[in-house]
């Protein structure tokens, strides 16, 4: 394992110190070392946006703290939900007196810890409502959508929720819009190599040379199919065939598209994939209003890629397009 770490059990602490040092213009620490807030959060009169999750899908989650984005995040160990206490403290750090929208991903640990944190917050009068992202199509059949994992679609949900809160919407409106965002979002991932949790020291699953795993999760959760790797064009087709019919997306739709590397795939390959994705969408008369290509939601040093497509109505289009600034995603007015 060739990694740039000190004590493998302290990678999260060590990295957080570095994030805080490097981004003083964006981030600030809190009393809880596992909670980081936007520098000027809480903003009085604005609904607070919180998320949280295990570390590893860098730069998620704290990479999306910022202007018109997230106000505070709870940070867990590698691939492990933050504690209930950290979620609770993030709620407090984000609350500007208008309640908090906790927009997070559908994982057992996160569900339990958020649930306990909300109980704790309610006990001192802080209202927290949630939207649980479940955009990962291969992780459960359509009629069991509530079981699906949240993956890179969370980023678009945060973008929308953060923008809605920045517009001054109240908590129920922020929740409704973030829910609409994720309801209109579908994702799928393909893994090409495994990843190694530093504290474990070796990969916890394997993908043979020349093979790929379709539907893999961001924490290395097994996918739905293992087979020989195919040309980028066919990967694009396969991914689109899985997600377009699921919503469904169709003729005349406006969409946002997010192609994220899983960590070790060269950026140029993400663009090779995006090229064909955009071509196919155009052939379906689907218009890409907001393309995002990069390492937005990784899985340590896994090779592979995720594709996320969000169907836009006028409101979602406006909110995705609103200028925003964070480590992981910056949208400038142009």
């Amino acid at each position, binding site marked *: 394992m060739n990694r740039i770490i000190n004590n493998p059990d302290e990678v999260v602490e060590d990295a957080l110190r570095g994030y805080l040092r490097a981004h003083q213009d964006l981030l600030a620490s809190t009393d809880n070392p596992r909670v980081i807030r936007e520098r000027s959060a809480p903003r009085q009169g604005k609904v607070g946006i919180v998320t949280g999750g295990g570390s590893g899908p860098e730069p998620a989650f704290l990479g999306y703290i910022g202007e018109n984005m997230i106000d505070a995040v709870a940070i867990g160990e590698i691939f*492990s939900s933050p504690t209930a206490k*950290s979620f609770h403290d993030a709620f407090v750090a984000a609350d500007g007196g208008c309640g908090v929208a906790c927009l997070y991903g559908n994982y057992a*640990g996160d569900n339990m810890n958020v*649930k306990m944190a909300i109980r704790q917050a309610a006990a001192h009068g802080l209202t927290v409502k949630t939207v649980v992202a479940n955009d990962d199509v291969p992780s459960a059949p359509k009629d069991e959508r509530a*079981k699906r994992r949240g993956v890179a679609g969370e980023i678009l949900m945060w973008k929308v929720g953060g923008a809605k809160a920045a517009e001054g919407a109240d908590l129920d409106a922020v929740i409704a819009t973030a829910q609409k965002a994720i309801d209109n979002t579908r994702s799928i991932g393909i893994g090409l190599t495994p990843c190694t*949790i530093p504290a474990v020291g070796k990969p916890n699953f394997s993908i043979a040379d020349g093979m790929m795993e379709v539907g893999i*999760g961001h*924490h290395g959760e*097994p996918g739905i199919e293992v087979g020989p790797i195919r040309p980028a064009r066919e990967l694009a087709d396969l991914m689109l065939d899985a997600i377009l019919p699921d919503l469904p997306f169709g003729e005349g739709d406006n969409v946002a598209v997010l192609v994220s590397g899983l960590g070790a795939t060269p950026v140029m390959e993400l663009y090779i994939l995006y090229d064909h994705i955009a071509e196919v969408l155009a052939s379906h008369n689907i218009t890409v209003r907001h393309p995002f290509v990069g390492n937005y939601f990784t899985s340590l040093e896994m090779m592979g890629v995720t594709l996320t497509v969000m169907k836009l109505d006028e409101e979602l289009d406006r909110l995705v397009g609103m200028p925003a600034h964070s480590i992981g995603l910056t949208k400038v007015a142009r």
Partner: protein
Amino acid sequence: MSHVVLATAGGVVLALADTINANRAWLSEIDGAIGDGDHGINMSKGFSLAAAALGKADGGLSAAFQTLGDTLLSGIGGSMGPLYGSFFLDLAATLGTAATLDAPLLSRGLHAGLASLEDLGSAKLGDKTLLDTLIPALTALDAAIAAGADFATALDAMSAAAEAGRDSTKDLVAKIGRAARLGERSRGVLDAGAASCCLILQTLAEALKQRLA
């Protein structure tokens, strides 16, 4: 030989921590097969923190379970923080200020822990989770008590059933947690939580037996 003096039994939790730490790699390996490979790390981190918080001072077993539960809950997150955390907190609350622990009190404590685990996680027997270790182990404990067995015999029955329960997960298809998405592919390997729960119950049984008075 039918009870344990609680005031001097805090070391039981240190024994639990030793077992978990010794099995750190193995538990992660099991979790790696159908989960995300971190179960051993999470558990070891939480139990080590609790052992450190307890130190050498023996404040008794109820307090030690309480510290363990608090530490898991506030220290490790994941699924295990809330699940094992509430489990040990409710076990501690049941033991309360009792002076001694006998088989019936242990059973009540474990049932209380089980109840909060079920409430939080909504898993059921057969879902391929730690409940597949815990529920049969408790059933065996209760059966031994009903049959008039002494505490040591009842503990042995619990240990044996825990092991059988753990092994039963091998043939199960996961219905909850990360592995649930795998369907049939989750069959054929042990469940990581069932394995750690078996380690916990067996170590608990051994440590209590050593302290029988």
